[in-house]
């Protein structure tokens, strides 16, 4: 059905553009003749087709714009969610590397400015991500296959430095800091935690800002 609609739209846009081209590029003689005899141009003789094409294009443009806006809105939120999940995974990696005694204090300091505990925050983020995927499926919005490429399953206790580096591969500053952190440079620990905390909070604020448009309550 989608293909038929596309073919129809292409056909109508072709006819519409043909009509306009005829109107513009009509030879001078014919133009003169037509105007002198009847005052009519080719577009006038096929008025019903032109009107139909105009209607089809108008509806198609407005519908596809709404669809595009909808898609952008959901995908924007999904990108922020993915980033947050990456930072949460990196914070698990830091914890695994340091092997601290008090995990509760370490993790909750990362999400304390969001108003949730680390456990609740992770759970909510994953749930929102899953729900948005369901929404995309429900509205039959096609998703870029590359957007799923970076997802991999790994237990939190198995996140090591190489996995952290892989997650930070698109962020050169973070990548460099993780390599320094691996060399046991103590200053990097506080910097890394603060950076992750800030990034998570920023993305969280962005999600909160965008979520009202598509009815997510956080």
């Amino acid at each position, binding site marked *: 059905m989608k293909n038929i609609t596309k073919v129809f739209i292409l056909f109508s846009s072709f006819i519409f553009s043909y009509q306009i081209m005829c109107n513009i590029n009509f030879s001078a003689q014919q133009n003169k003749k037509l105007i002198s005899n009847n005052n009519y141009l080719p577009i006038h003789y096929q008025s*019903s087709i032109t009107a139909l094409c105009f*209607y089809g294009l*108008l509806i198609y443009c407005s519908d596809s714009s709404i669809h595009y806006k909808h898609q952008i809105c959901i995908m924007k939120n999904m990108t922020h969610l993915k980033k947050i999940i990456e930072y949460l995974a990196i914070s698990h990696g830091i914890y695994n590397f340091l092997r601290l005694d008090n995990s509760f204090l370490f993790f909750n300091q990362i999400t304390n400015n969001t108003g949730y505990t680390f456990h609740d925050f992770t759970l909510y983020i994953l749930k929102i991500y899953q729900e948005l995927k369901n*929404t995309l499926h429900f509205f039959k919005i096609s998703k870029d296959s590359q957007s799923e490429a970076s997802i991999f399953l790994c237990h939190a206790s198995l996140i090591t430095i190489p996995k952290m580096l892989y997650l930070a591969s698109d962020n050169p500053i973070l990548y460099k800091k993780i390599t320094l952190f691996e060399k046991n440079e103590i200053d990097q620990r506080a910097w890394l935690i603060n950076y992750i905390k800030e990034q998570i909070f920023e993305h969280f604020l962005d999600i909160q800002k965008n979520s009202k448009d*598509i*009815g*997510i309550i956080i």
Partner: protein
Amino acid sequence: MKFIFLFLLLSANLYNFDLTAHTLKLSTIYSPIPLIDGNLDAKNVQFYNYINTLSIPLTACIYSILNPYHAIDTIQKNQLISSFMIYYMIHSANHCYILHKKKMIKNEIRVYVKKLFHLLIVMHGINNQINALEYALYKNTTMHSNHTPQNVMTMLEKLDSQWIILLAHYRKQYPLDSLYAYPIDQISIFEIAQATTFSVNILNTLTESYKNKHDVDYNLIINYAKTELEKIDIIMHNIT
């Protein structure tokens, strides 16, 4: 004997019932609509809605401006093509009307499915919260008591049975639609918040209950559920 037992087990699995419970109880809610509606805010698409509304009058204006002859003259000149075109137009208009009606009915059923689904999520969320509180009490005092109020349980049973009927009707009409699964024991404040779009007061009451971990007066939500259930009952009676 083995065969009968296997059959019973399979059918229980298929219909998603808990055999261990005394009453009929759902373990997972299968919904044809996801929890997050995902519809764009009306303000964001206002301009495009105007275009959609104005498209037919605009097309009529363009047609009347461009058309050199009167429509009657054109029909009189090309009778055969005109009669065929009129027949085809009436036929396609009829087809479009039927499709539109079908879509309207589907949307109407979807509205009620969504309402009932949200109520079901909220009530099961409340039940989970009550159970969690009961468990905490049991852990502290080593005394076990049935804490769930009777009116919550009754409403939950009514909603469950209504949901099974409505979902069966929906699946019969639209068997190809996808289903989204929501395990009942995992319903928490997140699901409740997404489902409580119908009332801010109820959302605040339930959020407070979850944050401060204490019981609240559930009469507000139960009364709301009762009125909605009555409405859905009437609609279901009309549909079936």
